[in-house]
């Protein structure tokens, strides 16, 4: 979400502190996803203050069968930077989806999206990521 481990850790600690305070006051959150919702809003708030990538129309390429080989050659920080640079709510959708911990209904609830929106955001995200992969790790090089 943030593309910056230090700021991510700050968000984690702030969310944990908030949860501890609520529990101490006998207001334990009943929502099982409270932690993720709170963390998400803190991430969005934090990213408002930092440098933001300019919103530009990204290229889209069809998914290639050799994409897994291209992705293998990526550095995790490159991927984190790419996802954190995506506009909201695509950034949240991609982050939650590739965390591989939530089903689609949970993602819809957490990201406050409808199924058509989530579907479009993920489909566009994949094609944009493929275009970026083709530019960053050319297919011939990946093979």
């Amino acid at each position, binding site marked *: 979400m943030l593309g910056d*481990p230090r700021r991510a*850790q700050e968000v*984690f600690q702030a969310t*944990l502190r908030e949860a501890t305070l609520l529990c101490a006051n006998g207001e334990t959150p009943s929502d*099982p*996803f409270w932690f*993720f919702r709170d963390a998400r809003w803190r991430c969005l708030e934090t990213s408002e203050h930092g440098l933001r990538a300019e919103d530009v129309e990204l290229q889209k390429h069809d*998914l*290639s*069968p050799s*994409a*897994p080989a291209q*992705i*293998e050659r*990526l550095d*995790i920080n490159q*991927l*984190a930077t790419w996802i954190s640079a995506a506009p909201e709510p695509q950034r949240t959708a991609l982050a939650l*989806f*590739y*965390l*591989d*911990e*939530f*089903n*689609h*209904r*949970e*993602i819809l609830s957490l990201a406050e999206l409808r*199924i*058509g929106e*989530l*579907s*479009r955001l*993920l*489909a566009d995200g*994949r094609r944009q*990521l*493929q275009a970026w992969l083709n530019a960053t790790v050319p297919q011939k090089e990946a093979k």
Partner: protein
Amino acid sequence: MRIVRLSRRQRLLANCAPISEELMNDRSMRTAVFRARASDEFADQQSFDRAVATLVRSVPVPPEIGEWFSSENLVPRSKWKWKMAQNPAVLAVAIALAVIAGVFVLQFLEHRHDFPGAEGARKLLMVAASTRSVLLDPVRTDAGALGDLFFMKHQLEHYDVAPEFADFRTLGCRVFDDEEGHRVAQIWVIEKGMQFFLFPAERNAKTGAAVEFSGWRYVEQEGWTGVVQERNGVCFMAALHGREKDLAPYVSKTKE
């Protein structure tokens, strides 16, 4: 290239198909994925997603954060709550299940003492409930004497009243065919308005031999109770409008 036709909704769902199988806990999602799996495009999508998820999983978690989750699931699954039980849909399903379970228990209790021919005996209890004395030929004698009448007049062998009931005075009798064409003898006696039935015992479908059972067996239907004994391939049933305890004094203590 394999292409599959999907509905609009299935296309939307297939685009959001979870990477892990265990997250596919939604029927509509499973259906969409099942259909989409036949296409090359979806296969590419899944390979792509798996590769990205593998890379994401390689993100190192700082040890001080990792400690917090060492023994917990990242996403706690919701547990059953009393609030859910108050949901009308859940309540309706629970009531329906309770009714179904009740019916099964009732059926089990009703049929736990069943014996070969119990179903036929119940039908005859319904006959007993609807029979009027005018339907029977008036015969005033001891019930035990009617065995000879049935043999002589109707060629019904072994249609003998059980010794326990043989001394009762009769009001009338008749012989008729039941729904399955079996010959049934019906006797009306003075004692407590009791009725006796003699009918063929249930037969083994393969061998045709009468299925035997020992002792007296009770059967109930719509307020009527019968006590049945099988002898020589013929069942004798004494029936009255009442409960098992009303018939019990008449039968010998060899009941099973």
